[in-house]
């Protein structure tokens, strides 16, 4: 039960193809997540990452299979699963306070407006927007807008946070400080997070597990990379950790070559038990070339 807090069980998503028949974005996808785990999905555009996230959010339906969260199958969206959208999706006619309070009042409909305000204020303070409560989204910078999105998601105390490339539209400095905030908040609250990203460093800094997804159509989960970096890593020096380059090179090798070549029909590949790898332990960073690192780490995990 505690082993698999979220369990994606054989889900598929198919669309009707233009010339009749169907195109499968992905087929038979299996993934388990523990409570309090931070999982990042990396893959090229169009591989179906966002579709997986939308299915987890309940915004999209599977063509086959099911997702079980905390022992219950997902039937549509739920207040237990908060989504942080890439485009922040704030309501422009509401203030910062109004946007967060809207979420709070949606979760607790009977609360008095004072209680709602207090709860919203708590999370506005948490993301460092104290003093901007009465600004409208158009008056905020991109980073501040995304902070409001995070405050809105956290304010309903969800069981899971789903983030769809939340920082991809931000400049590097803002992105860095927001990653720090998210990491701090998630560690403090023990939040379970499923996040999509294109940024390898972001994934290594934030995630406990990094799921590598091959190119679509017919995308599969190639492997799950366990992050070997210590849990108390710091932004300032995590890239100096001896295992950092091993992990990074492994992921980049995957994105450059193996995401194209990897086939779900390969011998020994079982979609129900996606291979778990822990790269970077045995080999020095310099020697981590494409095939070598993959096979070596696969062997290490086997």
């Amino acid at each position: 039960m505690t082993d698999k807090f979220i369990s994606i069980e054989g889900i598929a998503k198919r669309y009707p193809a233009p010339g009749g028949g169907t195109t499968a974005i992905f087929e038979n996808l299996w993934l388990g997540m523990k409570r309090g785990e931070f999982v990042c999905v990396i893959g090229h555009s169009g591989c179906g990452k966002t579709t997986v996230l939308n299915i987890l959010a309940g915004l999209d339906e599977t063509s086959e299979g099911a997702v079980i969260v905390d022992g219950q199958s997902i039937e549509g969206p739920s207040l237990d699963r908060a989504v942080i959208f890439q485009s922040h999706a704030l309501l422009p006619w509401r203030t910062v306070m109004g946007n967060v309070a809207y979420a709070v009042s949606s979760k607790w409909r009977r609360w008095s407006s004072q209680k709602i305000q207090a709860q919203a204020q708590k999370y506005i303070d948490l993301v460092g927007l104290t003093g901007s409560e009465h600004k409208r989204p158009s008056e905020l910078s991109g980073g501040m807008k995304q902070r409001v999105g995070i405050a809105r998601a956290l304010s309903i105390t969800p069981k899971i946070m789903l983030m769809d490339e939340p920082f991809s539209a931000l400049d590097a400095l803002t992105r860095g400080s927001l990653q720090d905030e998210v990491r701090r908040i998630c560690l403090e609250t023990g939040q379970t997070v499923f996040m999509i990203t294109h940024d390898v460093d972001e994934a290594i800094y934030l995630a406990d597990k990094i799921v590598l997804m091959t190119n679509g159509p017919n995308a599969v989960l190639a492997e799950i990379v366990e992050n070997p970096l210590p849990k108390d890593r710091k932004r300032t020096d995590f890239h100096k950790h001896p295992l950092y380059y091993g992990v990074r090179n492994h992921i980049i090798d995957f994105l450059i070559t193996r995401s194209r070549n990897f086939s779900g029909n390969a011998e020994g590949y079982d979609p129900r038990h996606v291979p778990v790898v822990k790269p970077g332990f045995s080999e020095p960073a310099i020697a981590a070339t494409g095939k070598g690192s993959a096979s070596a780490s696969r062997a290490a995990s086997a």
Partner: protein
Amino acid sequence: MTSSLTWRAAIVSIAIFVSFLLAWHLATRGTGPVTQMDAEYAKLMGATATQGKSAMPGPLDVAAKLWQHIQSPFYDKGPNDKGVGIQLAYSIARVAIGYFLAVMVAIPIGFLIGMSPLMSRALDPFIQVLKPISPLAWMPLALYTIKDSGLSAIFVIFICSVWPMLLNTAFGVSAVRKEWLNVARTLEVGPIRRAFTIILPAAAPTILTGMRISIGIAWLVIVAAEMLVGGTGIGYFVWNEWNNLSITNVITAILLIGLVGMVLDQLLARVAKLVTFPE
């Protein structure tokens, strides 16, 4: 820079207005040929024949008439001689009632069309056929069925203001950004709360644009409708003064119609500004 532009635009406006008045004054000042006639006969003839005055009133005549109307706008000396204020009030009241009824009908149906692709398709042929019909074409049918000229005029206002509001509401509602609807979905917001807290504020600027177009059309149509139904209203006043051959009154009325139309439009522009949100 902007303030200087405002000033310069104002100066140009005033210059155009003054030269227009001047041209108008010069053009209508003319002394035409005066015919010698019997004193008794001259009483029957207008100033055009006896004093050579222009048949078209000049700006000073109109200004004098306007001043006279402003001094006593609400006098009532029987069915054919009421103050212009009373006539305008009748017209505004008719437009207000017809327009209000149209809002009550158009916005809910627009919501329905915007939210349901089925209803959108099903109602589309009716809208396409009904929309291009001149509102005045309904007048005989309205008079025949309602049997009251005042109510028929209100009906005509209703029918002409419904369409722009209906189509704009439907468009605004169907064009609400998917991400905002997704926010509502992930927050498990019910359909009624979603309609009022997400769709209505998101579509409000588009709806208000439709309402603004409608009030403009309604004010255009009321003049024509009142010319047909007669009795009261600024349209009737214009037609009545035409029958009196009082061109001065007709010009005065035209000016007032324009001013009232502008005020109505500005009122809705104010409301539109309130509901518009910067992205």
